[in-house]
């Protein structure tokens, strides 16, 4: 039986599109949604959530930019195959992570401290996955 996979809370400060994107990303990262799995159309999701079509489209675009989903006209939205997130994408993301770490080092944080921050973020990601 389906679980509730997206819960939108309009009273939280987080924009609705970001809430949708974050929760779908967590389901994909947690392995609940396998590559190639179909996702609801923009209209179905917007209708069920009672939010603007553009809000859902923006969430899906953000997920597409991140390589998490593939949007293909008539066949709808699907979880992207690992290939699209791999190679170039992965290198690009590593580059961005290295940049962020360099900024933190420049701000005076010791390597041990950086490790602690990274572990904390990874643990938070895991909690997010379990929550959904």
């Amino acid at each position, binding site marked *: 039986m*389906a679980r509730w996979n997206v819960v939108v809370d309009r009273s939280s400060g987080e924009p609705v599109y970001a809430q949708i994107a974050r929760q779908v990303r967590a389901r994909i990262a947690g392995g609940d949604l396998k590559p190639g799995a179909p996702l609801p159309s923009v209209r179905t999701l*917007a209708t*069920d959530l009672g939010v603007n079509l553009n809000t859902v489209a923006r969430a899906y675009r953000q997920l597409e930019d991140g390589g998490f989903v593939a949007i293909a006209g008539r066949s709808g939205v699907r979880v992207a195959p690992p290939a699209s997130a791999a190679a170039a994408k992965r290198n690009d993301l590593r580059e961005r992570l290295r940049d962020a770490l360099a900024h933190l080092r420049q701000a005076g944080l010791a390597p041990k401290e950086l490790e602690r921050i990274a572990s904390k973020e990874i643990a938070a990601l895991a909690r997010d996955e379990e929550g959904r």
Partner: protein
Amino acid sequence: MERTILNMYLLVEVATIGGFMLLYPRIARKGLLFGVYVGAERSQSEEARAITRAWYRGGIATIALALAVGWLLGSRPGFPVGTFASTLLLLASFSVLYLRAYRRAQRLAPPPGPPLAVAAIDAVPEPNLALPWAVLLASAVAGVCVIVYTVNRFDAMPDPVPTHFGISGQPDGWSKKSVGAVMVLPIMTLVMGVTLSGVALLTAKAKRGLRLDGGASLVAQNRYRSAMSRYLAILGLLVTTMLASLSVTSVQVALGQRRTLPGAIMLVGLAIFLFAMLGAAWLAIRYGQGGSRLENPQGDAPLTDGLADNRLWKLGVFYVNPEDPSWLVEHRFGFGYTLNFGNPRAVATFAAFLAALLGLAAWAIVSST
């Protein structure tokens, strides 16, 4: 004979409309109380029970009054004045009863604020649209064929033309031959068939009224939505069949090719009446409003989004949400689905169909007088 049939019709109609309104609290979604979302706990409180008891008392009095009025006013040939008056009385009285119950229920509503909205991402069940599409296509083709058939025979038809038929199928009312008198029925065939099957199609894609329950309401909603869509599609098919045969055979009667309408049309009419009444009763008993009877084990879970947001419902019955792209949403008080009055495209489309139906009815009345 005609008087007896009309009285029986009155009895069945008052029992069906009145009975449905009276017993509505039995099929309503848990958590909703006369158009107000109060939550499962408060909907079972003593105050909520008192509101429902007042509804039952008022409803029984209304039904008794409607029957008495219908019986006393009786009927005139061609216009069942008693049935008409009792229907109006039923609708007006139940509206007053509803507004009283709605105002009392508002006091039980939780403080206003945006409720959570939920949707499923995996196991996405898409509705099956084959039947409503097939009926839409069939009724459009049948409607156009009937219009072409009638236009081709217009010049050969006599003046006056028969426009009213008795229960035996014999013509008993004639009108001066005009485009209106001849063409209203064929055009009505097209408009009615397309409207009903179009609504069936939209119903299959209507917004769901989900609960935070882990998916039971999604399953229940999907089953209810499909059943409702099938019901409307079959109704559309039956109505198109009846109106199309009525159009064609009344042209044949006018041309002297047959003396009476075939008895089978009366049978289809009866079938429509029975299907509409019994089908609605079956849907109500089997599924409850929105499939709520299927989700009873999880019925205490909070409702979400559209159904739970009291700020989006005017008088508890009109949903106005410009953010929501839905055309049809589940009724809070009523059976089936209602329009999202905040969606301009949905409102414009329905207004156009309503205007077409009312225009045709007015045209028919003007042409036959």
